[in-house]
Structures are given as structure tokens and as C-alpha cells.
């Protein structure tokens, strides 16, 4: 179980303080699939990075199974938006990186990465280098790398933001299959309402900067979900109504920033 209590994050730049996150309170259960949904610049990626232990919160606390988060931990793995694969390592070596860091013997490492590359359908590409793969394939490798260390909590930062629409659909289904099979808790950052509704058990809708939790929307519908169905359309309208004004507000903020910058 993941909890965030009274979480605040402020950035100080050029002597002035900017609030990125204000009073975030969250509770995510074991095995849940939760999306953090919000307009660009709302701090959803910042929140994910705080949960990952990559950056500290200004105040408040994050705990996993009651244990306070003060840095990265073995029970968490992160899938980054632009894959963050090492170009100098083969697909095999990339998947095995976390295992290498845990000093797992070479033979066992290879066994685990072979099994996971089979799961994501990339065993034939095991000896390739990342630049020889498509965007969708790279993200599959990145997911396999995260699964290799067998985390209970999978943190995903707009993982399918950089791939084309068809690949995206495929990857979403694959992720749901993996999530069911491996029983992970997933926290998934996205700015796509459709993606959030298709994937999540619950959607945490965030406000434009500074990011607050605006509303938590439960999506109890059974999977696989038919996005063309009437039920899903209703959910879409519901979330769009919640998020709509935030998107407008975020756009206005962005415009103001650009004006100030010019």
C-alpha cells in the first residue's frame, strides 16, 4: 500500500518560490492500477518522481507499506517517458541492468531477461542495440527492465506518450495483461483522458499548476473495456468535465509564462 500525506513541493528559482504540488493526499492499494491525470505542467511527473524517491518532497511524507520513502528502493521500478535505455548496451544487457546492480549471477540474469523478453515479444531482438528498435519496442524493453527486478510497485511516467496511436493501443493491452499476470501495483502518469479511462481502477485528476488532487474518479468497469460503448462514453464525458476547466487554466498559465518570457 502506498500513501502520500500532506505532500508539498516547492521549487526555488531566481530567488522566487514556485509551488509545484500542494497538499497531496493519496492512498493506493496493493495491486491497484491508478492513473495520475492532469494538464501539462500540473506536477504529475514530479509526484511520480517523489514516489520513486528520485527527488525529495518539500514537506509531507510518502510511505510504502508503512515504510517512509527517503530514496529509491528495491520494491519500486520506474518506466520513463523517453525509455532511458542505455544505447551502449544490448537489449539483453539493458533488461539485466537492475539485476546486475543486485549482484545476481550472470546465468540467472540471462534466464530472467530471456523470460521477460518472451513476455514482451522481443526475444528475437535480444542482441540488438536500442537505436535499432522502434519507439514501441524500446518501451517494451524498458518495461521488461522494470519487471526484471520484480518490483511490487511499477511507476510509469507517460510511458506511451512518444509512440504512435496504433502502437499505443497495443502497448496498453500488453501492459494490462502483464499487470494482471504479475499482480503489480501500477501508478501511471498520463495526460490522455482516454488512456486513463481505458487502463485505471481509479483516476487521480489533478489541477493545473500548482498541482492539487481535484477529484478521484473510480472506473469500476470490467476489462477489456470497449471504448466505443455507451458506458465508456459516459465516463469520458464525466472525466472531461472535471478536467476541462483545468486544461483551459493550464493553457492560460502557459500563455502567461510565454508572455513573461518574451
Amino acid at each position: 500500500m502506498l500513501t502520500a500525506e500532506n505532500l508539498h513541493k516547492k521549487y526555488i528559482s531566481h530567488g522566487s518560490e514556485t509551488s509545484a504540488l500542494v497538499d497531496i493526499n493519496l492512498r493506493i492499494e496493493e495491486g491497484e492500477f491508478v492513473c495520475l491525470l492532469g494538464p501539462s505542467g500540473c506536477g504529475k511527473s514530479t509526484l511520480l518522481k517523489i514516489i520513486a524517491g528520485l527527488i525529495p518532497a518539500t514537506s509531507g511524507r510518502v510511505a510504502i507499506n508503512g515504510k517512509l520513502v527517503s530514496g529509491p528502493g528495491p520494491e519500486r521500478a520506474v518506466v520513463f517517458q523517453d525509455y532511458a535505455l542505455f544505447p551502449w548496451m544490448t537489449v539483453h544487457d539493458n533488461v539485466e541492468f537492475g539485476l546486475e546492480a543486485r549482484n545476481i549471477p550472470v546465468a540467472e540474469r540471462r534466464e530472467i531477461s530471456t523470460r521477460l523478453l518472451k513476455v514482451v515479444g522481443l526475444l528475437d531482438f535480444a542482441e540488438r542495440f536500442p537505436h535499432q528498435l522502434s519507439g514501441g519496442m524500446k518501451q517494451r524493453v524498458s518495461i521488461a527492465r522494470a519487471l526484471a527486478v520484480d518490483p511490487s510497485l511499477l511507476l510509469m511516467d507517460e510511458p506511451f506518450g512518444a509512440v504512435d496511436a496504433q502502437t499505443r493501443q497495443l502497448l496498453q493491452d500488453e501492459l494490462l495483461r502483464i499487470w494482471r499476470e504479475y499482480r503489480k501495483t501500477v501508478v501511471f502518469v498520463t495526460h490522455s483522458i482516454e488512456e486513463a479511462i481505458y487502463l485505471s481502477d481509479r483516476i487521480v485528476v489533478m489541477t493545473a499548476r500548482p498541482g492539487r488532487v481535484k477529484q478521484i474518479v473510480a472506473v469500476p468497469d470490467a476489462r477489456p473495456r470497449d471504448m466505443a460503448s455507451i458506458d465508456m462514453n459516459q465516463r469520458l464525458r464525466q472525466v472531461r468535465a472535471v478536467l476541462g476547466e483545468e486544461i483551459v487554466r493550464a493553457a492560460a498559465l502557459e500563455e502567461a509564462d510565454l508572455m513573461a518570457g518574451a
Partner: protein
Amino acid sequence: MADVSYSKNVVREPAAAEATATSSQRWLPGRERWLGIATIVAFLVIWEVVYRLGLMPKWAFPSPWKVVLAFQELIANGKLLTNTAASIGRQITGVLLAALVGIPAGLVLGASPTARAAFLPLCRLLYPIPGIAWIPLAILWFGVGFTSTVFVIFFSGIWSIMFNTMTGVQTLSGQYTDVAKVYLASRSLYTRRILIPGSLPYIITGMRLTYGVGWRVIVGAEMISSITGLGFLIDDARWQLRPDIMICGMITIAMIGWVSENWLFDWIEEKTIVRWGMRTT
């Protein structure tokens, strides 16, 4: 104001793109190579003409053919081989020492702002001293021969590899560091598997420059502080009034420099950063 300069850029860019497009169409790759060869041939012809017309005193200005004959002589009596081997041995030793010290130093400087604050001022002070200026001190410390030449190569070459490695570390994507943190990589694993390969494009460029600088100072160093090597061969030919031998030495230096700088380092790049899709330029 901002609007005006922006529109200027927009106008200029397509024009520049057009210019490069037409020039690349006009110059086919085959033609470029022929132009290069033609210029070298023209150079040799002018050399021969200058010699025939007696524009320079003949005892100081050999014909190209005399240089070929001198090559034959130097190969036959083994002098070319022994002196080349001596120079290459010093060069490799000096460059390897520079890499052995320069790469770790560059990694530390790149990773630690404290180290940069402490050592960069001293480095910047030492860096402009030409390698040749170290020769008299090197002779006082190490005597004439191998060690002093290697010392000079080392001191001239270390800066390129060190500063390039430092830049490579500084420009490495922060995301790789995030991945290392997420998967709890130790400092040694991080250095070995991320920092060094990630900085490799810069490290190879640094080695290329270090190698080039070394090969350029070695001749000067050997002229003053050595009794073997290609530099010595050239300098010694002065006492024998053999300009043809001097030119043999110069050509040998050019050829070895060209082959190693272009072939060796291109090969290393091909096996690493090109294979990894990391070539930036």
C-alpha cells in the same frame, strides 16, 4: 525587436538550405576525390619544376625522385624501421600514460563540482604551456632519451583527453543517472557501465586530439633530447646535408599520423559509438 529578428531568420534559412542543396548536387563524391588527387599530383609537379629550374639551391632542395631513392636507402639499411619503431614506442607509451591519468581525472572533474573548483584553475594555468617548453626541464630530470620524450608527450597530450572526458561526463543525460538510482546501482557499477560508456564519444575525441598532439610534439622532443626516433633522423640529416632524408622522415611522420588518426580512431568509433547509434555530429 524580437519579431524583427525572428522574421529575418525565417528568410535567411531557406536560402541557406538551397545553397547547400545545389552545391551538394554539383559536387559528386567521385569528383571530390579526383580533385584531391589532382591537387597532390600538381603539388609534386610544382616541386619537380622548382627543382629543375634551380629556383632553390640543389644541395638543399632534393627532387621527389631523390626522396624516393632515399626511402630505398633508409629501408635497406634499416634506419627507417628502427627510428620509426622508437618514435612509435614513445608515442604509444606517452599517449597511454596520458589516457591512464587523464580519463580518471576527467571523470572525477566531470562528476564533482568540488574537484572542478579545486583543480581547474591550476589546469588552466598549466594547459597553455607548449609541450616543447617542457623539454629542457625534462632533460634535467630524466636525461636524454626515452623517459624525457615520453614525459613531454604526456604533458602535451593529457589536457585534451582530460577536458574532453570531463565534458562528456557533464553532458551525460541526467536520465541515465536516474535509472542508475532507481535500480540502486553502486558507484562502481555506475562508473563502469554508465559514466564511461556514456562519455565515450567525448573520450574518443579526446584520445584523437591527445594522439595528434603527441605525434606533433614528438619530433621536436626527439630533435633535442634523443639519439633515436624520426625526429632524430630528421635532425641528424641536417649534419649530413641530406635534405632528402629529412623529407623521408617528414613523409613517414605524415603517413603514420594520417593512418593512425584516421584509421585507428575511425575503427574504434565504428566498433563503439557508431554501433550504438551515439554519433552526434
